[in-house]
């Protein structure tokens, strides 16, 4: 029982799930709305959500979902009509940020109040994983259609474990337990408050002072200290986050594989894990994060060897290389990594100019190729590796995540893997992809890191799955 207050660093932006692509929104979406298919707590399996069960046709083009008896928080039943409407809406609505991803849907029809039939334009193995996106939540058609443009987003109605009482912008979102939730019996909390506390120090002081029950996104630097506080529990949940260094393959010497390889050799990831993550992270070696589907644990790990790096550079005729390193301003860890990498590369004879820019600008610079190297991170939205693989290696419109990496074999393999239904064969394909990418040094994997949250001692079962969903319907406040 009780109301769980959670301190986070940013406010939600909207309650219309199709109009956001941000984690801050997703966290609350999954409290308030429900999806047809969910990803389980371990982040490795799809489990029933609003859909009790589903079948996939032989050709992989028709998905039939059987909906359970569930109600929206206002007491109206959740129907297949609502589900169909929501899917078509995310695909077609002008304001949807997800249209592209859902273009694969051809039709979505409610054949009866509890049956939803979705037909795809083409085969897509990751499709089911996409149904677990909070953005594809099932919304009450009547309310969304009837409402003026932004009223629903202010005062939403969903079928999740909690419903929105009040949104005080910039301050907090107040949720209360939804008695009409289909699994309401299991929900222990009376309500949840998501508080906005942007400053890291304040957020940590807030929980130390006992003014909130939980604080999320704990900076690595604060963990050791919080752990010494007996009143607090520091929780480290596995995530799909991977930090990596992008390399612009089109810039001069960086086009040469040997040069990129030298950079990989010259960067001491262990030192970064130590200094920037305080040993909370783990050295990364594959673009598929550890613990994720098809992660290849035996992938190549280049040792830290500045001497060899120097030699490789010399051989490639790139001694005295000078690189322009775009750093995201205002990100504590990113700035720390930049300072470390600058010194490490200097040991291999590479001169690095740090160029700190505001994060909104760094996107543009990366997209336009105005950079040599830059550190970015990725967390998976969906369980299936296809999404990230396509972005990173699939040669789509993003120039392989702005790296301008080109390998046609890889490109073909990414497409094939998307369509492969046999899990064993699919895994083999992804292992190959991971090896090839590493061999080509498409980028430099730096580290994997967990989600680190902290709660007061009386809070139990406060967990996040690797995709970032909080399972507050299970959380207990004693």
């Amino acid at each position, binding site marked *: 029982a009780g109301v769980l207050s959670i301190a986070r660093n940013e406010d939600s932006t909207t309650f219309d799930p199709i109009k956001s692509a941000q984690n801050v929104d997703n966290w609350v979406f999954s409290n308030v709305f429900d999806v047809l298919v969910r990803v389980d707590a371990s982040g490795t399996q799809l489990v029933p959500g609003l859909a009790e069960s589903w079948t996939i046709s032989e050709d992989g083009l028709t998905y039939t979902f059987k909906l359970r008896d569930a109600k929206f928080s206002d007491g109206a039943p959740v129907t297949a009509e609502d589900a169909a409407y929501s899917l078509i809406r995310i695909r077609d609505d002008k304001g949807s940020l997800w249209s592209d991803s859902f273009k694969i849907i051809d039709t979505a029809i409610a054949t009866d109040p509890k049956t939803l039939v979705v037909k795809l334009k083409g085969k897509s193995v990751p499709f089911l994983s996409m149904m677990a996106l909070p953005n594809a939540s099932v919304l009450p058609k009547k309310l969304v259609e009837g409402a003026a443009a932004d009223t629903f987003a202010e005062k939403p109605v969903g079928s999740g474990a909690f419903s929105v009482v009040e949104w005080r912008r910039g301050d907090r979102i107040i949720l209360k337990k939804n008695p009409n939730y289909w699994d309401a019996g299991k929900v222990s909390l009376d309500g949840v408050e998501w508080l906005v506390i942007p400053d890291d120090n304040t957020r940590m002081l807030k929980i130390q002072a006992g003014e909130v029950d939980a604080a999320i996104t704990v900076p690595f630097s604060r963990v*050791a200290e919080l752990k010494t506080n007996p009143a607090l529990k520091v929780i480290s949940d596995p995530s799909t986050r991977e930090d990596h260094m992008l390399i612009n393959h089109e810039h001069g010497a960086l086009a040469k594989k040997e040069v990129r390889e030298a950079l990989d050799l010259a960067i001491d990831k262990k030192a970064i894990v130590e*200094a920037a993550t305080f040993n909370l992270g783990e050295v990364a070696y594959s673009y598929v994060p550890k613990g994720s589907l098809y992660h290849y644990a035996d992938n190549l790990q280049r040792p830290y060897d500045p001497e060899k790096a120097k030699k490789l550079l010399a051989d490639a005729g790139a001694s005295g290389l000078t690189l322009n390193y775009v750093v995201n301003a*205002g990100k504590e860890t990113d700035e720390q990594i930049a300072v*470390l990498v600058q010194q490490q590369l200097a040991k291999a004879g590479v001169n690095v100019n740090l160029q700190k820019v505001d994060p909104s600008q760094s996107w543009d610079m990366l997209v336009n190729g105005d950079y040599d190297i830059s550190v970015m991170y990725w967390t998976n939205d969906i369980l299936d590796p296809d999404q990230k693989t396509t972005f990173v290696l699939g040669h789509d419109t993003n120039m392989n995540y702005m790296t301008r990496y080109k390998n046609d074999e890889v490109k073909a393999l990414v497409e094939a893997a998307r369509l492969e239904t046999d899990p064993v064969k699919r895994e083999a394909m992804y292992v190959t992809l991971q090896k090839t990418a590493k061999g080509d040094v498409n980028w430099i994997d730096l580290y994997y890191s967990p989600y680190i949250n902290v709660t007061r001692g009386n809070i139990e079962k406060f967990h996040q799955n690797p995709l970032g969903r909080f399972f507050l319907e299970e959380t207990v406040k004693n």
Partner: protein
Amino acid sequence: MSAAVSPKRMNRTLVAGLVLLGGFVLAALAAPLIAPYDPIFQDAAARLQPPSWAHPFGTDNFGRDILSRLIFGARVDLQMALIGVFFPLVIGTVIGAIAGYLGGIVDAVLMRLIDIILAFPFLVLMLSIIAILGPGLSSFYIAMALVGWVSYARLIRAQILVLKNADYAVAAVSLGFSRTRVLFRHLLPNSVAGSLVFCMSDAVLVLLSGAAISYLGLGVQPPTAEWGIMVAEGQAFLSQAWWITLFPGLAIVLLAFGFSMIGDALGEAMGVHE
């Protein structure tokens, strides 16, 4: 008003202020000689060390020596204070003097411009300009100059408006001196006192604006040692390693203290008050 004790005390304040400022200038000039370490040298083995004989002010999370960074930081911060005040002072003085002396439409237009800049949220201007030009010292200076001149212009303009009717100004005109001569030889030298005093507190404001910008993530480029950014970055380690923020914080305070003492003394000497 001319109490006999005040000049003595004024001198003491001035000397104390100058000594403090001089100390910093000296430290900045002699930084490579007196700093015990390279300010950007990272020593993985000596991370987050508390103050000791080896590191009198401790080390930061990269194992860099705080004292050395402080000493080298003096170069950047003094430069920030100097440039951050100098350009606004010069620009503001010239514009304010011209507006005040010419009056009429020139004055009206310039005053509206000043009104707009004054009404403009300082931070929007600062952040936008820095975002446009990219973070770094030169953007900071440009932003400071674009925003900061306004105060000086207002000060000077007000002075000139009064002084241009002063007898000696009218006398200068009556003797056939040219406008430029009257303005720049006779009026300006007599009106800058207030601005010079204001300079000193403005220098403190510049440093603090720099620190605020650092806090918002747009400060100088790493790994440059600068006090504001040291404080801002050190916040992450506040409870484990207080020394990372305390010493640069104190450095800012001491420098500010020096500036305001000089300002006080100048103000008293020149008979101006903010």
